[in-house]
C-alpha cells in the first residue's frame, strides 16, 4: 500500500473524506463544521466538496446533535457528529446513554452513529476543554469506545467506526492532532476493533495504555531501555471492545504491569484492566499491578498545575523503575 506521511489531524480528515466519498449515507453534523471547517479544521473543505446538506452547521444544541444523528441513523443514514470538545458531550449524555446505547437491545433497531470527540489536555484548556471522559462511556453497555494513538489508526479506526452498526465514541486526542506524524496508507482500510497494537516491544515490564499516553509511555520506556530494562508498550486502540487476550499475554510474558491513562484515576478504565489482570493473571505476576493516572480533580488551567495533573514521562519512568526493582 502506498503511504504518505500525515499528521494525526490530516489522517482523521482524509479518512472522513474518503468515507463520505464512498458512501452517500455518511454525513457530518456539528457546531461550526461547515463554513468554518470545524474548530480544529478536521472538516475543512468538506462543505465545498459535499455540499451544505451533507456537512451541517448545527445550533449550539448537543442534545439535538446527538438525538438528530440517532434519528437519522434509524432512517438509514450514517451520521458522523462532532462535539466541538469532548467535554461538551455531557450535554448529550442522555441521548447517548438513554437512547442510542439501549435502542438495539430494547427495540431491535441498530443506531450506527459516530461521535467524534476532541479530547485531552496539555494546552491550558482548563476544566472544560481538556477532559478524557472515555471511562464514563465505557461503563455503558451498548456503546463502543475508540481511542486511536497513531495517524494510521486514526484513519483505519474511523472507517471501522462508521461501518460499525452501533453508536461509537471516537476520542481524538487534541495533543496528537499536529504533534504526531506517521505513515498513512492512501487507500481505504478498516482497522479492527478490539485488537491492541504493540507500540514498543519488551519483555521485562508492560505498560498498557491508549491515546496520547502511548507516547508518554514510549518516552519513559526509552529511558528505561538506557538503564537496561526492556519495557513493552501496548496500545489498546479501543476500550470497548478491549483486547483482553493481548493484555493477558503481555502480562504473562513480562510478569509486571503498569496501566497508564490521562483520565482521572478513580473509576478510570485502568481500574477495569487492573482488576482483570488480578482476576485472571494473578499467578503470573511478580509485582502488584501499578496504575498511573491523573489525580481525582478537575483539569486545572495554570500550566504548572496542569503539568502536575497530567501524567508526565518522569512519573511513568519512576513507577517503572520501582516495578523493575520489585
Amino acid at each position, binding site marked *: 500500500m502506498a503511504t504518505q506521511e500525515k499528521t494525526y489531524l490530516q489522517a482523521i480528515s482524509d479518512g472522513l473524506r474518503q468515507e463520505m466519498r464512498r458512501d452517500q449515507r455518511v*454525513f457530518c453534523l456539528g457546531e461550526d463544521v461547515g463554513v468554518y471547517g470545524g474548530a480544529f479544521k478536521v472538516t475543512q473543505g468538506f462543505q465545498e466538496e459535499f455540499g451544505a*446538506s*451533507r456537512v*451541517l452547521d*448545527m*445550533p449550539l*444544541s448537543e*442534545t*439535538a446533535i446527538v*438525538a*438528530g*444523528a*440517532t*434519528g*437519522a*441513523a*434509524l*432512517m*438509514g*443514514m450514517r*451520521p458522523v457528529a462532532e462535539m466541538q470538545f469532548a467535554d461538551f458531550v455531557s450535554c448529550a449524555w*442522555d*441521548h447517548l446513554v*438513554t*437512547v442510542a446505547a*439501549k*435502542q*438495539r*437491545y*430494547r*427495540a*431491535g*433497531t*441498530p*443506531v*450506527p452513529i459516530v461521535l467524534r470527540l476532541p479530547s485531552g489536555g496539555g494546552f491550558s484548556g482548563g476544566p472544560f476543554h481538556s477532559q478524557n471522559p472515555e471511562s464514563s462511556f465505557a461503563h455503558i*453497555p*451498548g456503546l*463502543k469506545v475508540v481511542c486511536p494513538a497513531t495517524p494510521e489508526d486514526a484513519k483505519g479506526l474511523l472507517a471501522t467506526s462508521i*461501518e*460499525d*452498526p*452501533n453508536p461509537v465514541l471516537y476520542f481524538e486526542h487534541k495533543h496528537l492532532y499536529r504533534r504526531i506524524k506517521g505513515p498513512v496508507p492512501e487507500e481505504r482500510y478498516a482497522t479492527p476493533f478490539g485488537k491492541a497494537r504493540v507500540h514498543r516491544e519488551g519483555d521485562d515490564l508492560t505498560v498498557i495504555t491508549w491515546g496520547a499516553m502511548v507516547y508518554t509511555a514510549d518516552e519513559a520506556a526509552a529511558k528505561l531501555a538506557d538503564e537496561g530494562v526492556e519495557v513493552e508498550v501496548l496500545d489498546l486502540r479501543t476500550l470497548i471492545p478491549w483486547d483482553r487476550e493481548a493484555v493477558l499475554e503481555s502480562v504473562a510474558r513480562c510478569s509486571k504491569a503498569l496501566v497508564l491513562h490521562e483520565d482521572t484515576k478513580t473509576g478510570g478504565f485502568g481500574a477495569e484492566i487492573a482488576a482483570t489482570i488480578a482476576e485472571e493473571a494473578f499467578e503470573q505476576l511478580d509485582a502488584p499491578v501499578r496504575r498511573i493516572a491523573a489525580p481525582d480533580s478537575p483539569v486545572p488551567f495554570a500550566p504548572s498545575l496542569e503539568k502536575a495533573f497530567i501524567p508526565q514521562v518522569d512519573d511513568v519512568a519512576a513507577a517503572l523503575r520501582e516495578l523493575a526493582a520489585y
Partner: protein
Amino acid sequence: MAVREAEPVETLQEVKEAGLDREDLLSMYRNMLTTRAIEERGHILYKQGKIPGSFYTGRGNEGSAVGVGTAMGPNDVGTPLQRDMGVHVTRGIEPWRVFAQYMGRVDGPTKGRDGNVHMGDARMGLHTMVSHLPAMLPVAVGMALAFRIRDEKRVAVAWCGEGAAARGDAHEGMNLAGVRRLPVVFVIDNNQWAYSTPAHLEYAVDHLADRAAAYGFEGVVVDGTDVLAVYREAKRAIEKAREGGGPTLIESVTLRMEGHAVHDDAFYVPKELFEEWARRDPIERFRGWLRDNASMSDEEEDEITSGVKRLLSAAIQRAEESPVPDPATLLDGVFATPEELETPHHK
C-alpha cells in the same frame, strides 16, 4: 401572539373534504374502542398479577392518538408516548403483541427487553419511547433531517407531554426543526397533569402552542377529545410538512382520566374536573357524532363492539401462550451485528 384554535368538524361533508370516507370513520371508531379495551383489559391482567412492573394508560387520549395516527401517511414515522396506544393500534399493531409486551413475553415488540408502552414496530414507522421524556422528540427531528437530506417526501411526528415540554430536549428539537424547516410535526398531548403537578406549575404561557412562534412556525390548539378535529389539524400539518412548509406544533388538550400509572389514584385532581371531562369522553363523543352525522346503525355499532371484544379475548390468550424470554438470551442484542443493517429501513 395568539395561536389559532382549531374548529370542530361539524358535518360528513367536512370530513370528506379532509380526506376520510365513511369506512375510515368506522375504522377510527373501532381503533378508539380497541385502544381503550387494550388498556382496560391490561389493567385487569395487571391486577391479576399477570403483568409485571407498572402499568400506564391513556384514557381520555384515544381520540387524539387515533386522530394523529390516521393522518400519518404509510411511509411516515413517529415516536408516540405512553398515552398514545391509539397510534400503535391505528398503525396496525396486533393487540396480542401488545399484551405480550405488557407481560414481558418474547412476542412483544421489545421481546421482554422493555415493558409497558415502551414499544414500537419500526416496520410500522413507529419507534419506541424512553422514560426520559421527551427524549424521542429531537430523535424524530433527526428522522426528518434524514428525509430532508435524501429529498424524500416523508414526515416525522414527534409526541411530547405538556410536562415534558419543560425539558431542554423539546426546545433543542423544535429550534433545530424551525431553523431547518424540517418535515416534522410536534404533537403536545396536554392532559393538564404531569404526574401530580398541574399545568400552571409547568408553564407560564396561555397555550403551549404559543411557543411555536418562538421557533418560527405555526402553532395550533385543538380539542383532543374531538378525534375529527385532531385528525384534520394533523392532516393539514403533515401535508404542509411534506410539501416543504416546515413544522407545526399541535397542542391537543385533554384530561388524563386516570392516575399517572395504575398505582396512582390521582387524589390531587379535583373531582369536578374529572366529572366535567367525563362528559367529553372522546369515544362517547365520536359515537354520538357517527350516529348523528354518519348514520351509524345499532347493527354496525354492535358489530364493532363485539368484534373488538372477540379480538381482545383471543389476543390475551395468544399472548399468554407466548414464551417468556430465556435467561440464556440475556446478552443478545446489546450490540448490533453488521447483517442487521441490511433491513429495509436502512437501505
